[in-house]
């Protein structure tokens, strides 16, 4: 009896070894991919978290009647006001070149910030007020500790002169770091300290709405027709092959198509989320059709037979029984397609969504850009401060992706039925 279990022992051992070897290889592969994902997310987060805060400088602004015309605030030169404030705060600076450097301490937007505050709170007028101004990007980096002050002076953008001023401001408590709300509430800017993600985010959301509204109904209708109604013929094979080929077409080609047809022939507005969404819809359509067809195929044919056997028409059988069962798969496929569309840059470049957009788009025909394009634009900018903006924009993009995936899971759970 014992012979029965021991005779193959040697062979068995090597079989077990190969099995455990394979298991470990699998675990290693998963570990590697998860590790790289974690490293990527961590590094993006570490780079991007700086964009969540920004430095501000407090300056005592003379808002008495001598400088501001109380009856006509609009007429006041706020840029002069800011300039004078800075010169008075640092009276020892007299050299023209140094004075110009001093003006660069606050953001180019400082005069408008001051104007906005005064217009919003007229009670500030009449006395000397301490106003917080957004610091320029170099100061911002310094405040975040990202400027290496031990470098020789000629190798850094902040000279000893500015470091001296900053030192003075810090000592007097005139330098602080606040949550950078503007990053989420304003559009792009040439000044890194003012640049925000909102216009790109809204552009992306508008484009995706157009993309979904076009590609989802078209895609599932095409899939349902091809899978449930169309007779198998040479034509249906031809169409199937072509849909599969379309899914593999490089996305920039769809951009060219959009450029020549939507912009060139139809004359739709350039750079608009409408055209962007249409181009993305073209790109997403084959993905949705393929996923939806696979999902329809996985519905057991016994359900169709049951419905048709009762005298349901083909349409009733499809829409009452088959489609509800295929819906989770269709939705998942669509969201996967949409997620791909969200991350797409190339086709949008072709239709002009690469523009520098400061204003948040108000509608589908306004000029807009999209998140990945914004990432691309910022990554291309020379100012070092855009580095953290780039990473933060990527985080926003990833966040949107996660939201979409969660939506897919929730919808799938909601529609899922056993059969």
């Amino acid at each position, binding site marked *: 009896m014992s012979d029965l279990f021991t005779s193959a022992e040697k062979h068995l051992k090597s079989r077990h070894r190969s099995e455990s070897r394979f298991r470990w290889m699998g675990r290693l592969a998963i570990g590697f991919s998860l590790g790289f994902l974690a490293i990527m997310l961590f590094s993006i987060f570490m780079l991007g978290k700086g964009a969540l805060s920004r430095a501000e400088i407090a300056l005592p602004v003379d808002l008495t009647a001598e400088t501001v015309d109380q009856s006509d605030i609009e007429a006041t030169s706020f840029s002069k006001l800011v300039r004078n404030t800075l010169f008075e705060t640092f009276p020892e600076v007299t050299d023209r070149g140094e004075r110009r450097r001093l003006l660069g301490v606050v953001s180019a937007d400082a005069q408008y910030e001051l104007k906005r505050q005064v217009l919003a709170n007229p009670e500030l007028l009449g006395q000397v007020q301490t106003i917080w101004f957004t610091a320029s990007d170099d100061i911002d980096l310094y405040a975040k500790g990202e400027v290496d002050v031990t470098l020789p002076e000629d190798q850094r953008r902040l000279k000893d002169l500015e470091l001296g001023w900053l030192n003075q401001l810090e000592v007097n408590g005139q330098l602080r770091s606040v949550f950078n709300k503007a990053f989420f509430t304003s559009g792009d800017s040439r000044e890194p300290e003012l640049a925000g993600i909102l216009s790109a985010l809204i552009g992306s959301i508008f484009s995706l709405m157009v993309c979904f509204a076009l590609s989802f109904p078209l895609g599932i209708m095409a899939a349902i027709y091809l899978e449930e109604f169309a007779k198998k013929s040479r034509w249906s094979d031809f169409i199937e092959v072509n849909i599969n080929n379309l899914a593999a077409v490089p996305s920039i080609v769809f951009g060219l198509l959009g450029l020549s047809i939507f912009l060139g022939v139809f004359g739709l507005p350039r750079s608009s989320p409408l055209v962007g969404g249409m181009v993305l819809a073209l790109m997403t359509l084959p993905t949705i059709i393929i996923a939806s067809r696979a999902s329809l195929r996985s519905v057991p044919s016994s359900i169709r*037979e049951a419905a048709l056997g009762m*005298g*349901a028409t083909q349409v009733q059988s499809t829409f009452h029984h088959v489609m509800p069962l295929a819906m989770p798969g269709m939705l998942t496929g669509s969201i996967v397609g949409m997620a791909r569309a969200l991350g797409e840059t190339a086709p949008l470049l072709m239709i002009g969504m690469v523009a520098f957009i400061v204003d948040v788009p108000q509608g589908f025909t306004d000029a807009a850009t999209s998140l990945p394009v914004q990432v691309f634009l910022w990554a291309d900018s020379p100012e070092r401060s855009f580095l953290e903006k780039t990473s933060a924009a990527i985080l926003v993009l990833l966040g949107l992706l996660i939201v979409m995936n969660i939506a897919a899971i929730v919808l799938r759970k909601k529609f899922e039925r*056993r059969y």
Partner: protein
Amino acid sequence: MIKNPIITARDVNVFYGQKQALNGITLDVPRNKVTSLIGPSGCGKSTFLRSINRMNDLVDICRVEGEIKIEGKNIYDKDVDVVALRAHVGMVFQKPNPFPKSIFDNVIYGPKIHGMVKSKSDAEEIVEQSLRRAGLWKEVADRLNEPGTGLSGGQQQRLCIARAIAVKPSIILMDEPASALDPIATAVIEELIDELRQKYTIIIVTHSMQQAARVSQRTAFFHMGDLVEAGATKELFTSPQDERTQNYISGRIG
């Protein structure tokens, strides 16, 4: 031969692409009786069954020649609406296939799409009556809102029968209705078939000769696409005329 048959099939040929599956079948089906179609796998008995409610239309490459008349009307005529035909000729499949909906919705689906339900009380009445006829009422009366897929295999099959009779057909086709069930559930179904023949004409495809002998009054034996022999069940099993029938029922072929 049979007086006042409900179905008369004349010279029915069925092709799947180039392949001929049925060769000139001519068969009369008697009213309010159970007719069983027997034969080895691939003999064409299911194909013939599916020709009676035109389920074969769903197969792109399938082509039917000849005529099948139900109550004197050829169902392959151009003016015949398959939807109306299938309301008249119900079908129960090999594998129980309730919809992934509640028991109530399963039964009421057919009457609803055929516009037979006017009110909620109508619906309740149809559901109760159908489930009673299918012998399932007592078991599910208190859980009509639970999914039909949660029932046991035998119950599911009776639910499918209830669903079929809810549209008030005159003919019910059954494609090996008990082959996926255990012997006890099978016995329940067979009993039910015997009761149902009071009101319906039933045609049942079965692999089991014992089942054919138990439930049917007439039997037709198919072999390789031919209808070899048809007759009263008792006679066919006791004194088959054809050698192939004899070989099959004695277990030598099939």
